[in-house]
């Protein structure tokens, strides 16, 4: 009896190998960044931690699929998704029209505004005129690159591969200001020792064309079934209180937005 079951299992496994199609049992390959605390960062032992990582795990659990986290440098995220290196991106990617030309998104899973950060006594304000001729740092291929070019055309733009490099150069004094997600800025810099002496400059960036309508999970355009399943899971996680538990582990405020 036992043996027969095993044989059947073996056959099923072989079938799955031969057909190679994505079934419910296949692992879900999730593209993550790992350099964007507190949403994702890498521990000294190489393990990934953060809100995006917790979110990935919860999604896989609800899909009843194993999670394979694939680390990917930010400016190669979309090409890697299109090249099928993973099935979805769960890496705080904002839903924008420009990106929708290439890929598709679920509903948002959080929405926090972007803000400028500069020295406390910067001596200029967060307007286009104030930033004229100033060195402004942003992470490459983000919504902030788009906003920075649009709203602060007179600033000298410095592009970085990771947000952590932006913070390093801001702290070192190579940048006059930087533009990024306000929550990440607070948790990942302003609240730390390195960020002492720095503060937000001006109000939240009002630029829906570049900034989009919040962060969602990204999928390839043809994977509509996966997109809808993921969207439903986000709404479920929000509705049944799991979201609050995950949110409160990292943040003092609710980051879901309006």
């Amino acid at each position, binding site marked *: 009896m036992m043996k027969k079951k095993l044989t059947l299992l073996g056959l099923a496994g072989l079938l799955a190998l031969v057909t190679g199609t994505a079934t419910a049992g296949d692992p879900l390959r999730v593209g993550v960044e790992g350099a964007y605390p507190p949403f994702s960062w890498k521990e000294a032992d190489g393990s990934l931690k953060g809100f995006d990582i917790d979110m990935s795990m919860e999604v896989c659990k609800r899909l009843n699929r194993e999670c394979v986290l694939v680390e990917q440098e930010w*400016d*190669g995220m*979309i*090409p890697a998704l299109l090249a099928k290196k993973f099935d979805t991106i769960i890496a705080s990617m904002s839903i924008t029209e*420009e*990106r929708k*030309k*290439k890929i598709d998104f679920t509903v948002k899973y959080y929405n926090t505004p972007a803000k400028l950060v500069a020295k406390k006594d910067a001596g200029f304000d967060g307007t286009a005129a104030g930033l004229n001729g100033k060195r402004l*740092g942003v992470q*490459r*291929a*983000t919504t902030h*690159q*788009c906003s920075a*070019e649009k709203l602060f055309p007179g600033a000298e733009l*410095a*592009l*970085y*591969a990771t947000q952590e*490099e932006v913070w*390093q*150069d801001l702290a*070192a*004094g*190579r940048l006059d200001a930087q533009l990024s997600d306000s929550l990440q800025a607070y948790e990942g810099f302003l609240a730390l020792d390195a960020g002492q002496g720095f503060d937000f400059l001006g109000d939240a960036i009002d630029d829906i064309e570049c900034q989009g309508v919040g962060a969602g999970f990204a999928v390839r355009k043809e994977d509509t079934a996966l997109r809808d399943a993921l969207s439903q899971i986000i709404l479920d996680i929000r509705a049944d209180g799991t979201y609050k538990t995950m949110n409160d582990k990292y943040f003092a405020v609710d980051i879901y937005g309006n």
Partner: protein
Amino acid sequence: MAETDRTFFDYLVYVSENHSPLDFMLVADHIDKFFYGTLLTIEITLLALLIGGVMAIPLAIARAYRHRWWNGPIFGFTYFFRGTPLLVQTYLVYYGLAQFDFVRESFLWGPILSSPWWCALITFSLNTAAYTTEFLRGAIENTAKGEIEAARACGMSPARMMRRIVLPSAFRRALPAYSNEVIFMLHSSVVLSTITLQDILGVGRWLNGRYYLAYEGFITAMLFYMALVFIISRGFRIWEQHWLGHLRARTTVEG
């Protein structure tokens, strides 16, 4: 109606965006950025080669003649710069030095070490100096015995022999190796884009970051690098014909 109103230019944009594997109109829109990137790439590569090349001459002589005090430290210098990747060296200078308060408070920080341009130039110059030192040393050591004997027989002092005989001959023989070094340096200059400089690759990465079009940015960057390599190798071929003409096989004219 709308169809006929469309100009030929609109049509090109439409084809480029929807039917072409490469959005060439988008590249054409930003081609000026690529030319500025090319200028930066050439500027830093050339300056680094110049500074590194000038540094390499005394270092190579000291190495070739096994100078009692200098040989060891120079060997350490070339071993370090040839044994580690340029990317790591650049990070060390750019991000590494910025960590120390005393560096940030020193007089060098404001004008030089805070600028990615200077950090890159310093690292690239030291890197190419290390490689050039070693193959120039080889060329000096391999100077034909007869040339040196002849120079001595003419009563040349060691300094004059170096200037008139050894170095000119070593430069000629090192030229083919040097053309490789120049092309390697050009290829290595892509490191510039990792420390916020908008070199050719930097512009390619900017385009990818702005429009999420990887092919457009990187293929254009590749074409620019290929054009530069073509020009460099052509230039060196002409230079070699001029300098190494005496080594070519002679052709005799049938009478």
